[in-house]
């Protein structure tokens, strides 16, 4: 066991997957010698060679589109999109191709492809780089969406994603890449897709978060506890398919729910979570499901981003509102 950051855990997972399975390859912009702009692929080209760790031309649609062919042809591509905000370029190859090949071919072909991308704010990037558009993909049948919030999950979820026979969008919270360390087993392990994690137990309010918002949620829960409110924190881990059972069980217990995400509010995945909760646990609800989210504006310039992003203060206020409803 070593004490690893998320980025190190991802790097280790990639290396192990490539070691174990010669079909696994990594491709994307600057993933080779440079090791990725965040160093997720650091050292891989030296270990596995230029044919398995490929610096592609600067063309995201080509990265995903050729990966679809690679995957059908028997490889297990792990494609990197340098920042999630550039995935707009690949919406067609993801939305109409990668995610529909199994369906279109009635099961003759499938696309075991992982698309990795860093996302979220807090890092003072230029425009577009910090976008959180996971909701697009959660609304796209045929692809799974996964996001870790801890080093342990990062490795285990990434290995499970690479093993998955279907396309997985694996989005990585940029601001947590090096935020903290955690014991991560050396050996291969998988954290199953489709299962949320109870990050903290509690029984008065259910707080649902993912990726970069999990630490914010945990901190808010901590502070709420000091104020005498017991908050359960659910880290979704897989955004599609949603683990409705874990969410529902919790809300049936607590009777209150708050969803937190960085993405803009309208049409964000928080809406789906709220809609589902009120469908499944209507009679348990003491208050409406609250949403604490980015505002309905483009992600702002660095001088404003801290004020724009959900923070513990806003989450606490929502917890209070749910309690006082």
């Amino acid at each position, binding site marked *: 066991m070593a004490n690893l950051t998320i980025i190190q855990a991802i790097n280790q997972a990639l290396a192990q997957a490539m070691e174990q399975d010669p079909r696994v*390859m990594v491709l994307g912009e600057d993933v080779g010698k440079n090791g990725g702009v965040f160093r997720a692929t650091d050292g891989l080209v030296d270990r596995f060679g230029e*044919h*398995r760790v*490929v610096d*592609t*031309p600067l*063309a995201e*649609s*080509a990265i*995903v*589109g*050729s*990966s*679809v*062919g*690679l*995957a*059908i*042809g*028997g*490889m297990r*591509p792990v494609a990197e999109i340098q920042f999630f905000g550039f995935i707009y370029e690949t919406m*067609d*190859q993801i939305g*109409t*191709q990668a995610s529909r*090949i*199994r*369906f*279109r*071919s*009635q*099961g*003759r*072909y*499938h696309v075991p492809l992982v698309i990795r991308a860093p996302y979220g704010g807090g890092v003072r990037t230029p425009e577009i780089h910090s976008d959180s558009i996971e909701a697009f993909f959660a609304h796209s*049948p*045929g692809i*799974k969406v996964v996001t870790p919030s801890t080093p342990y999950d990062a490795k285990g979820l990434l290995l499970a994603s690479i093993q*998955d*026979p*279907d396309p997985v969008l694996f989005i990585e919270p940029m601001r947590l890449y090096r935020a903290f360390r955690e014991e991560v087993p050396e050996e291969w392990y998988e954290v199953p897709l*489709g299962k949320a994690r109870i990050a903290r137990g509690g029984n008065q309010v259910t707080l649902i978060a993912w990726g970069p918002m999990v630490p914010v949620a945990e901190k808010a829960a901590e502070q709420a506890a000091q104020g005498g409110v017991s908050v359960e924190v659910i880290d979704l881990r897989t955004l599609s*398919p*949603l683990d*409705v*059972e874990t969410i529902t069980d919790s809300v049936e217990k607590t009777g209150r729910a708050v969803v937190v995400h960085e993405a803009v509010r309208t049409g964000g995945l928080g809406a789906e979570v709220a809609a589902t909760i009120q469908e499944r646990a209507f009679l348990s609800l003491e208050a409406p499901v609250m949403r604490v989210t980015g505002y309905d504006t483009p992600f702002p310039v660095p001088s404003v981003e801290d004020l724009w992003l959900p923070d513990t203060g806003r989450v606490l206020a929502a917890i209070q509102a749910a309690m006082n409803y």
Partner: protein
Amino acid sequence: MDIAQEFPIRQVIDADGQLVGDRSSVSDDQVKDFYRWLVTLRTLDQRAWNLQRQGRIGTYPPFSGQEAAQVGAVAALQKDDWICGSYRDWAALSYAGVPLSYPLLNSMGHAVAGRIPDEINALPVQVVIAAQTLHAVGLAWSSKLQNQGRVALTFFGDGATSQGDFHESLNLASVVKAPVVFVCQNNQWAISVPISRQMNSQTIAQRAVAYNIEGIRVDGNDILAVYQTLKDVVGRVREGQGPVLIEAVTYRLGAHTTADDPTRYRPSEEEQRLRYGEPVARLRRYLLSSGLLTEDENKQVEEEAKARVEEAVQAAETFPKGAPEDVFNHVYADLTPQLQAQRAEFQRRMQQGGTARG
């Protein structure tokens, strides 16, 4: 640079059916086999058109005029090479071994038409213009990485060359030296948009210059030119020379699809003029004038074609409907809890006869 000179159109048999090139690498039997295929496919295509007009199948995209380009190219492949085509490439798939009933099933809205039989390495027909060209690059690349010796051949139209994906494909293929053969069927129209409005260039082949790859123009209505050119190219691509761009100059003899009305946008004079050199008539002229085929044999070919097509129509029309709940089964390898619940609800509805639409 003189484009016309750099990219001449290769021809073996001209519109009049005269041998104007070398066909020494193609046996007489092979030529006749090509002819039988072209006649069969043309018969199928016309039958499909009529079936649509009778309301027996849905929208159908005819390939008449493009049989030579499709068949000639596929004939140059080996059995396990990859084929990645679009909605109009059923002639290619049929020649590769997909049952003739599949294009009909496709237009009847049967999901099975997407399930290419296991022994054929072809992707389902592609609807999104140029998207398949990137899949071909990936397939070819995967063949290279796994030393499989397979080539990927992708078909696309003249309109497709305007798409970003087309450009990204050629560039990536050139950089990784993927064994891809890009075959553009320049049928001169993208629905109502003529090639002169699609691009401001004389040829599609010249786009190869941008990627430092070989670009070749061939008469797409001349199956021998297509076949011989592709045979040579596929061999070199398989040996590792990198991708090649082929422009098969042909003509869409009819409408874009059964939903289209070309009289709205193109002169019938053009149709008349270009119909003369179309692949089936041309090959027939050659075969008859060279004595390789008699009028009687020709009749027999046509009869056989009709019979095969009739069988295909029968097969399509008696094909069992897929279970509607199959719609849930190929979204992922396993049903998600959501899909499981939705399928159950759907099945309940079906059992309650919930098929009426209001």
